[in-house]
């Protein structure tokens, strides 16, 4: 009995397609995995520092590219000619920020943000990217308004994240 594979085109077509598509997908998967790891490592080169760690923690020096976390201080947001300036704080340490553009998302006073950028000699963080960080707390908008009315009657300041 002849058990050699048939080479007729109609028989070869589906198996060739079947073999190439998964191999192509596997190649793309490996490439995508490599890109993901490379981008993550490139991003991790920029230290993730809290405001109070600037100049204190190794890697959080002025003049180098950083990601700085802090809470936008109450009443400090100023918008002039497309530039947004504000002050962020963490554990009572403050840092002025200047960002060319309007931060997106739920950016507002008293909200924690992560600013990518470099602290120049004048002590101002020149932001290249602002990301708003939200906590793992989820609170009913209306319920909180009642609490806010009581809480904020006396105090003006935002409390820094723990």
């Amino acid at each position, binding site marked *: 009995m002849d058990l050699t594979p048939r080479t007729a085109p109609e028989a070869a077509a589906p198996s060739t397609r079947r073999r190439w598509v998964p191999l192509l997908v596997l190649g793309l998967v*490996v490439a995508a*995995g490599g890109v993901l790891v490379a981008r993550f490592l490139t991003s991790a080169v920029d230290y993730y520092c809290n405001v109070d760690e600037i100049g204190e923690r190794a890697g959080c020096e002025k003049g180098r590219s950083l990601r700085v976390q802090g809470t936008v201080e109450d009443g400090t947001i100023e918008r002039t000619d497309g530039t947004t300036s504000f002050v962020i704080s963490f554990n009572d340490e403050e840092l002025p920020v200047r960002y060319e553009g309007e931060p*997106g*998302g739920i950016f507002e006073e008293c909200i924690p943000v992560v600013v990518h950028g470099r602290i120049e000699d004048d002590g101002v963080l020149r932001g290249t990217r602002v990301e708003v960080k939200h906590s793992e707390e989820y609170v*009913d908008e209306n319920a909180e308004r009642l609490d806010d009315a009581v809480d904020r009657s006396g105090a003006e300041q935002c409390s820094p994240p723990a």
Partner: protein
Amino acid sequence: MSIPPDDTDITTAGTSSAATRLLGTLAVVGVAWLVAFGLLFSPADRDQRESVRIMYVHVPSAWLAYLAFIVTAGASALYLFRAAHSLVWDRLAGASAEVGVVFMGITLLTGMLWGRLSWGVFWTWDARLTTTAFLFVTYVGYLAVRRLGGTHQQRARRSAAVALLGVLEIPLVHFSVRLWRNLHQESTVARPDGDVKMDGLMLFSLVVGLVAFTLLYVWLVIHRQRALVLEDAAEDHGLEQALSDRRAEAALPGGR
């Protein structure tokens, strides 16, 4: 059960039964509940306003993707380490991974939309986002490995090995928010101290989402697993047909 009984006509056989029809109905009802609670009954968030509603799809789909990949690993282990090497486990692993990849894709997509609305960016290379994308890519690779060809048993052995390695990424994804400093917030519900800081109705809507998506997952996996039984049977049928054709050829006068 490796292939359907001989009298099954694979050209007309379906994948539904009374149980799956009931399950499908429950899943649809669950999704309707989710829409009602997610969009209408649950309140807006203090900071995130209406965009918080994306959570009711984002979080359950992430959990279901984890569950799906864990089921894939469990079924793969049962295939590999039980003497019978039953393809039932292999097909369950494959079906669960396919559904898991869909859920993981939904997680990434809804996460990007939610990120744009609350963080102000679609994407950032932080640990939670990167490890999630890596998990998604791993299981797309797993599905490609399943289609590399060979016999059903070869497919099962190869893909089981990948599944048992891939599942090790899940703890890394889940704990990435604790291991590294992140933009992504820490877990609200699945946290070690049990202190869930979420409004009651929001939490209930999230649970509705989890139940609805779990029903949807089970329903999809059962159907997909049954479809895979038929696919394997169709392939076996094609092979048997080719062999019998050759035998018929050989039996002809002058046949080799």
